[in-house]
């Protein structure tokens, strides 16, 4: 099973905010057994989707060369369940950024209706936690392309984001050719 709980970015402003979409389908395994009789997409995975959206927003600031982990869910309020056929729109914004971590706030809407609100703390790991990246750069770039990050992403001045050279190099090294 893939561990990606957003499908694509809809907008992305470097170091500031992002929106991402997740389509809930009946064919997804997590809906089967979570609450028999009422198949719905678990709120815990919605938290994970928010963490992935926020974590990517945070990681992009240093061109995905820092290791970022979800450290704490400070608040999570849910107002309705997510059902097959729903499209979840994750909106995250970076509220505070320090050298060792960050606070990200966000909400999820379904057809304009508030589904949930969250606030989470991320830790930015230093070298005392080792130096290996969590995701090989080429793999991560493949995922970011699928999520269309570089198709919609802009910097704070509105200029289109470019793919970091180290990721392109890693891709060439692995595949022998760039992905686009």
């Amino acid at each position: 099973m893939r561990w990606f709980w957003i499908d694509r970015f809809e907008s992305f402003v470097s170091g500031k905010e992002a929106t991402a979409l997740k389509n809930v389908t009946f064919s997804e395994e997590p809906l089967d057994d979570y609450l028999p009789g009422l198949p719905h997409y678990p709120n815990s995975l919605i938290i994970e989707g928010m963490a992935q959206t926020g974590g990517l927003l945070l990681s992009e600031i240093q061109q995905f060369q820092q290791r970022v982990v979800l450290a704490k869910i400070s608040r999570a309020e849910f107002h309705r369940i997510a059902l097959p056929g729903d499209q979840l729109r994750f909106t995250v914004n970076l509220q505070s950024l320090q050298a060792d971590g960050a606070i990200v706030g966000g909400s999820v809407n379904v057809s304009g209706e508030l589904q949930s609100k969250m606030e989470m703390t991320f830790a930015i790991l230093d070298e005392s936690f080792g130096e290996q990246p969590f995701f090989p750069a080429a793999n991560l770039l493949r995922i970011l392309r699928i999520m269309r990050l570089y198709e919609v992403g802009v910097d704070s001045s509105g200029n289109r984001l470019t793919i970091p050279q180290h990721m392109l190099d890693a891709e060439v090294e692995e595949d022998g050719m760039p992905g686009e």
Partner: protein
Amino acid sequence: MVQIAEEIFQKVQVALVDALGVENEEVTPEATMVGDLGAESIDFLDIVFKLEKAFGISIPREELFPDDVLTNASYIKDGKVTETGIAELRKRLPWADLSKFAQNPRVQDFGNILTVADLCRYVETKL
């Protein structure tokens, strides 16, 4: 008796209850952040953020956590902060009550000296 402004204390209390999931009654002026309230290092990021929002202030990390002093070899001997080091800490953290720590200033204990009252007095210096 610890003297702190009630209005400041109340806002700090709200921030700590929110950030640490503790009860109002647990947040007393004398409570230590780590030992009594169970704050972990990542919680301080959250606490600082909430205090900045509540009071409209900016809190540089080094003002609350003088890591550079505690890792400076000239201030440390045999795992303890030297008298010069204590003097430096008092200069850097005039709002903190270091009297108890100074009696047996083991570096490893420093992380647990910060109390709610210290935090209130620190915030007061920023207003």
